[in-house]
């Protein structure tokens, strides 16, 4: 063969071979791509962080709720005022009533449908609740507010929205602006590509993509964001393959949930559902055309058209989308005009309930971490129903901030504090404030500031004594006198009272209500430290309790949350009801996954607990808590205890009514003397917090085995009503002294045979 011909033959054969190899490689590559696309799309699971919700607000006749609270709540929940409350998430005034259209939600009891209801509030109470059409409605709930999401390990966040739940106007605008031929093409649009190629040629570089929605989805899902030719070469076949295997609506729904629409610190905002909440504070379904147009406009560049940072540019872009939508027949001319006149109406970042309660979310996070692996929390879209009472939380934040501002004004403040509020019956944690600046995400003092509890320990000493009814009762005299307890290495513990005085022998009741250190110390030493420590354990203290005499006066260090745990059995009459921040966990479709039910375990002697509770009521009536008089309604019975640590470093108040308990701590982070005392710094906060929620009186009815007895001041003889120095005490039957002053009747009421006769004659 001639050389030339042979070279030609070889080159042709080589070319053919190369072509064949390329073809095979392409086919293999295509097959690989096909498998990749199908596999990844089929197995794609949305990374849906667990979402945390506050407890839904219950509405019912007689509920304590004033109109301003209700309006504050509706604002927080982004209800819009609209005549007749026609759609979910709207409200209006109607004479003396409010018309509300609730949004509805799922719960482990089935939840609530969206419904229109009429609410009448008179004199701070709900005076009427009915369906808007007049039907009876004994109880209704507003949907729970989302207060956070838990996304450990990654920073994507989204709220999944199904295509049939997406406003049709959004889809229409999206297609009009981004991909008019979406329902006609097969993944790529030659017209779009050639238009982009022309534009790029003119610009001398890659400026436009000409991508279809399918291509954009492929790019967002699997490819880098760079506009390179190689990426384009992969994007085209992948888009075609995607269209080959999946329905248009499937692709569209995935697109709507996948698109990136901004950044909230470390959290990436993905999907239209979350974007609606992030920018407008409302569900996607409630957005109006001008809102939807902004979201569609932002797809071109969420940073470039960020409505918070670049409102003018964002508005121009929104208006352009609106005009395109009108020209494509998506909206009418009239709607366009109205929409153009509207502001952007973007809510301030961090202004809503989402991420507004970091201290409480911290508690939820800790509880969840015990029960769920991080991967489940990050991706399964769990709905966490928490116990947060938004109104109580806001009131607690306000009370702490206001009181500390009065005591320590200015920017360079040193005083800080924490509040924990619970509903003891259910063990629900209603509010957690970890800083005087409640939005601060730093040190959570409510859970982590571990401080000496001061006199908050005293009820434990009294309770220990009262559990020995043959030896002690509240009238028993204890010595409020200087006491010296030898310690190791020759040291001596010699506590003093806050007023540096000693009162001599005083009833145990006064030792507690007047918070006398020497009396409590001598009583505690008489009882034995081990017995007091055992009581503290039964109250729920889990930390190591050193067997030093100073624990009697509260050298024991606890966090405000641990104090709430410790006071829980005192508030419930002797039952340990574990504090919970979560009631239910639901899966993505609203089906119950887990419940955290109310429980109660009897841990204290019922009668002794009642007596301790009663003594703590006297703290509020005539002891160190009496400064609160007038803050709460006079007919509400509450009990509590002040606490102040050495050097006025820590001020505490812990107390409860029949349905709420609150613990307040005030002090400094550097643990320096803060000049604060329980009665002057913590009590006012406690009073404001408790006054802000509906209260039920603490029961003063004695349980079986407790009688009311008039006692002489000597603490060893019964006396009678009207007798000199006689005081009435609740007393366990086993404690009632045999000796009497022979003055009057010793029992006050219906105890025993005499009471029976008296009832008869009355």
């Amino acid at each position, binding site marked *: 063969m001639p050389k030339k011909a042979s070279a030609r033959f070889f080159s042709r054969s080589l070319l053919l071979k190369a072509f064949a190899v390329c073809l095979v490689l392409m086919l293999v590559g295509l097959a690989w791509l096909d498998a990749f696309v199908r596999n990844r799309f089929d197995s794609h699971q949305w990374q849906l962080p667990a979402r945390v919700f506050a407890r839904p607000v219950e509405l019912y006749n007689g509920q304590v709720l004033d109109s301003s609270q209700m309006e504050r709540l509706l604002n927080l929940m982004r209800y819009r005022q609209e005549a007749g409350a026609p759609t979910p998430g709207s409200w209006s005034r109607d004479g003396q009533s409010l018309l509300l259209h609730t949004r509805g939600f799922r719960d482990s009891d089935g939840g609530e449908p969206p419904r229109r209801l009429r609410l009448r509030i008179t004199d701070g109470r709900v005076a009427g609740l009915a369906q808007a059409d007049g039907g009876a409605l004994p*109880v209704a709930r507003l949907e729970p507010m989302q207060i956070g999401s838990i996304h450990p390990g990654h920073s994507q966040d989204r709220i999944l929205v199904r295509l049939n739940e997406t406003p049709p106007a959004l889809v229409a605008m999206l297609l009009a602006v981004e991909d008019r031929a979406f329902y006609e093409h097969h993944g790529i649009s030659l017209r779009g590509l050639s238009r982009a190629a022309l534009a790029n040629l003119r610009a001398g570089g890659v400026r436009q993509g000409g991508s279809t929605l399918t291509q954009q989805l492929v790019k967002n899902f699997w490819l880098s964001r760079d506009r390179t030719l190689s990426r384009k070469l992969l994007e085209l076949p992948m888009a075609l393959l995607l269209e080959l295997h999946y329905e248009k609506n499937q692709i569209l729904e995935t697109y709507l949930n996948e698109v990136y629409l901004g950044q909230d610190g470390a959290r990436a905002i993905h999907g239209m559902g979350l974007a609606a909440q992030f920018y407008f504070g409302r569900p996607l379904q409630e957005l109006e055309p001008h809102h939807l147009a902004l979201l569609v406009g932002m797809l071109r560049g969420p940073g470039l058209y960020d409505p918070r940072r670049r409102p003018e540019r964002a508005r121009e872009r929104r208006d352009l989308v609106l005009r395109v939508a009108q020209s494509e027949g998506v909206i009418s001319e009239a709607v366009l005009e109205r929409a153009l006149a509207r502001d952007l109406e973007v809510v301030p970042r961090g202004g809503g309930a989402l991420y507004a309660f970091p201290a409480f979310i911290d508690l939820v996070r800790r509880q969840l971490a015990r029960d769920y692996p991080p991967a489940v929390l990050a991706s399964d879209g769990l709905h966490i129903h928490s116990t947060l009472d938004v109104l109580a939380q806001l009131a607690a934040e306000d009370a702490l901030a206001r009181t500390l501002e009065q005591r320590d004004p200015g920017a360079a403040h040193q005083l800080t504090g924490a509040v924990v509020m619970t509903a003891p019956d259910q063990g629900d944690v209603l509010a957690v404030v970890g800083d005087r600046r409640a939005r601060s995400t730093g040190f959570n003092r409510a859970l982590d500031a571990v401080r000496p509890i001061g006199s908050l320990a005293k009820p434990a000493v009294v309770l220990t004594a009262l559990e020995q009814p043959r030896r002690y009762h509240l009238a028993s005299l204890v010595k409020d006198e200087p006491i010296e307890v030898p310690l190791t290495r020759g040291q001596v513990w010699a506590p003093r009272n806050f007023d540096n005085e000693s009162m001599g022998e005083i009833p145990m009741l006064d030792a507690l209500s007047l918070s006398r250190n020497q009396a409590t110390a001598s009583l505690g030493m008489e009882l034995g430290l081990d017995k007091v420590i055992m009581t503290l354990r039964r109250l729920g203290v889990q930390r190591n309790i050193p067997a030093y005499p100073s624990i009697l006066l509260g050298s024991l260090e606890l966090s405000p949350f641990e104090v709430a745990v410790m006071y829980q059995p005192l508030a419930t009459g002797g039952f340990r009801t574990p504090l919970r921040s979560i009631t239910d966990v639901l899966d993505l479709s609203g089906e119950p996954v887990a419940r955290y039910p109310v429980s109660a375990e*009897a841990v204290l002697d019922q009668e002794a607990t009642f007596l301790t509770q009663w003594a703590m009521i006297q703290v509020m009536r005539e002891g160190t808590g009496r400064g609160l008089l007038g803050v709460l309604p006079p007919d509400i019975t509450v009990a509590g205890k002040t606490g102040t640590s050495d050097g006025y470093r820590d001020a505490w108040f812990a107390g409860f009514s029949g349905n709420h308990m609150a613990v307040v701590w005030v002090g400094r982070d550097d643990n320096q003397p803060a000049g604060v005392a329980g009665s002057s710094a913590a009590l006012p906060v406690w009073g404001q917090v408790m006054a802000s929620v509906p209260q039920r009186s603490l029961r003063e009815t004695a349980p079986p085995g407790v009688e009311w007895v008039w006692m002489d001041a000597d603490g060893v003889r019964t006396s009678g009503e009207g007798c000199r120095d006689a005081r009435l005490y609740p007393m366990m039957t086993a404690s009632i002294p045999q000796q009497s002053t022979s003055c009057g009747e010793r029992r006050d009421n219906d105890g025993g045979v005499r009471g029976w006769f008296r009832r008869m004659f009355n």
Partner: protein
Amino acid sequence: MVQAHVQLMWPRAALAGLLLLLGACSVQPVAPPEPLPPVEVAEDSPAASLLALADSARARNDFSAAGRYLERALSVSRSGEATVLYRELAELRLAENEPRAAEGLALRALREAPDHPLWQADLWDLVAEARDRQGNDTGRDSARDNAERLREAP
């Protein structure tokens, strides 16, 4: 001193006894003691509708929903209603085969109970059943004794 106390009591007791006797001899029949009102949740209470919903949820074995309704009822309940709701919760836990939880809740219902011997006796029976299911025979017997004592009380 005990004697002195008893002596002080006797004259009045004797007088009362005499009056009782005279009362019995008079023509007017002695009215029987009025039965105590039932312990229940008031019909117009917000807790009542939730209690009814809890009942229907329990009837269809949806314990999770029943529990949620009862806890909601507890949070909106009026004074004096807690004893009914804790009792319902205790019975629910028993049905869920959680006798330990049921015992605690029944005792809690007792703590909130009014001075109503029959109601309290029923609650002690519930405690006895919960203890029995935990194999606590002594506790069960003591709870039953309490119930009996209350039923026999005048």
